[in-house]
């Protein structure tokens, strides 16, 4: 019993770091722009598909797949920014939400038609068989997600707190008008925010497809669902919140699946989300004021 709980806890933390990355992507964008990007999941899914192109063309090594995925995600991200954000003026927070829903539909359909809605095999460079650490079995791709999560968040925090761009992003996040007066180009920061979160989408797409074993259209819905929940659970716009939210959701799901079964896993997850929000209306680590 204790061993089982521990084993599922380890799995939950590893898989939860994928959730944290997804939530992180949603959170950075929301934090800086105060807008929802519902097309983020579709960007991740499309990036995973595109990263397969060099593999199918000339058996490219996996780092080239990751780079292709990153490049594709950034291009799609810029397209989303151009179509759904750039021309919608301030004061219309809900318009990009609806526009990106349109984008979600359009991107998904583009992929569905290019592939006849078939999932495509996505090889794992980390090996298929679990490592044996004592009595525990640890999936190498999950371990890689954990490492990638630590790396990505370290890089993001360095970027936000040690670079000029990071300072500009935080300035725009906190007081956009003031930032503009101080000479920060909000437009430029917005575009760079999209580049950053889309690059992250490329990484997420790679690890999501590796962990499932194939690139599939429904990755978009999976990522959107988990991302929104993690973002809100942790607290809107709070990056540490996204990390905590992702890990909490991961651990919770694994324990619930083991002890209660998959049928009650999601009910329990949403009940806990609901209760947390009622008692902490700004999420686990959300700011008291906005």
């Amino acid at each position: 019993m204790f061993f089982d709980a521990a084993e599922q806890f380890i799995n939950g933390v590893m898989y939860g770091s994928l959730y944290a990355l997804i939530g992180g992507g949603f959170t950075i964008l929301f934090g800086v722009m105060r807008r929802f990007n519902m097309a983020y999941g579709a960007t991740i899914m499309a990036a995973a598909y595109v990263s397969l192109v060099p593999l199918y063309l000339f058996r490219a090594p996996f780092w080239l797949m990751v780079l292709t995925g990153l490049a594709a995600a950034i291009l799609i991200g810029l397209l989303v920014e151009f179509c759904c954000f750039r021309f919608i003026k301030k004061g219309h927070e809900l318009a990009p939400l609806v526009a990106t829903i349109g984008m979600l539909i359009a991107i998904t359909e583009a992929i569905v038609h290019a592939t006849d809605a078939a999932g495509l095999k996505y090889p794992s460079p980390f090996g298929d068989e679990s490592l044996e650490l004592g009595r525990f079995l640890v999936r190498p791709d999950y371990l890689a997600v954990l490492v990638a999560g630590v790396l990505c968040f370290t890089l993001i925090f360095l970027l936000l707190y040690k670079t000029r761009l990071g300072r500009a992003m935080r300035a725009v996040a906190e007081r956009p008008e003031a930032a503009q007066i101080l000479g920060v180009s909000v437009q430029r920061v917005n575009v760079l925010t999209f580049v950053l979160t889309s690059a992250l989408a490329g990484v997420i797409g790679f690890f999501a497809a590796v962990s499932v074993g194939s690139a599939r259209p429904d990755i978009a819905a999976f990522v959107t669902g988990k991302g929104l929940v993690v973002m809100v659970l942790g607290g809107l716009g709070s990056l540490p919140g996204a990390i905590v939210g992702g890990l909490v959701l991961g651990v919770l799901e694994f324990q619930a699946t083991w002890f209660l079964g998959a049928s009650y896993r999601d009910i329990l997850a949403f009940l806990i989300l609901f209760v947390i929000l009622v008692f902490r209306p700004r999420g686990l680590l959300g700011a008291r004021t906005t």
Partner: protein
Amino acid sequence: MRRMTGLQVIALAVALLLVPAWAVAFQNEGTLRIGGMWALSGGAAFFGKAALGLGTLAVDEINEAGGVTVGGKKVKLTMHPQDDACNAEQGLAAVRRLATVDKVLFSLGPTCSSVAEPVFGTLQKKLGDAGDTGLQLLFFTDTATKFGLAKLSPWVFRNTPDEPAMYDFIVKYLKENRPELKTVMVSYESDFAHSAATWKGALEPALKKHGYHQVVEVVDWKWLDTEMGAQVTKLRRANADVYFALAHTTSMCPSLKEMKSQRVKPKLIFGITSLAGTEVLLNCPDLAEGVVSPTNFAPINARAKQIADKSWEKYKADSNIHSVPAYENVHLIKGLIEKAGLTNTEDTLLQDRRKVRDLLAKVGTFQGVIGKITLNPEDHPVKPRDVDKDMLLVQVKSAKWTVFWAPPHLKQN
């Protein structure tokens, strides 16, 4: 003026709705319309497009051979496919479009059982009773497999797999041929009607009936789940001889990946019926190696091979357990049309549909692509208007489906 552009775009788009259907063409124009309702967009499009391709291939063959004889005149078949995106509301509109705008004689499809439920539910239940205002459109289904759908309306016939018979056969086969495999473990998708029904309505009753195997573990997940670590750990501890994975490709592949990583190696793995197609081979060919699945189609004879090649070449359509029936259904109905004495005019459409329906109800046994198919009569106690047909077991070997077991009479082909 730019402000108006948005409104104009919308107005234009809505105006498209009012575009009338294509000019109605019937006997006097030398055509006869047939329809199909499939998921041609969205996540289930792989199956929808395959069935559309095979149905269209049959139409091509018939037209190339001169067409169908109606009232002493050769007319060409025209195919009117409608997309339901595997969405019930779109299906409910599409069925009326087929019935009253496209004015088709009969429809193939639908792809998803969740669309078939409301669509068949709105068809007439009491045949010819004016008090029952359900739609009068003949369906001859190729894909939607959920047990009992044909009972919803006398206008529904299906050429789909009979899963209780299939799993009954598998359990009996195992008991007789592999008596050393005694323990069984099962996984199924608790939120997917087809998968849940295959476990509760087909496999579990079969295991109980034959009373030989011992079920040591049953786990479930959702069909779009990406992570099955906890469930597979349970399967690993159960360590049964035979594993029934009643899962569709979406959850089958990640669960097999998890099995490999946890080194769970049952002696034999059986998949769900819908698995025996190309989809799983695109998703996880190596992981699926060795998986056995029941099916009604495999390219085991010259004709079947030719159909599979041609449909792929012409329409990139996968010939599988669900799509080949679309081909068979079109050919069967073509024969019935010639016998039914249709007038093939717009005004007599309802009578024409009824005539073909009544003939279809009495068709009995007919020739399918790989063997004989028996369409059960309307008074069949268990599965009226559903088929009994040859079943075989196929196995993934080197990323291809190969025959694992076939009834002796099929092998001679």
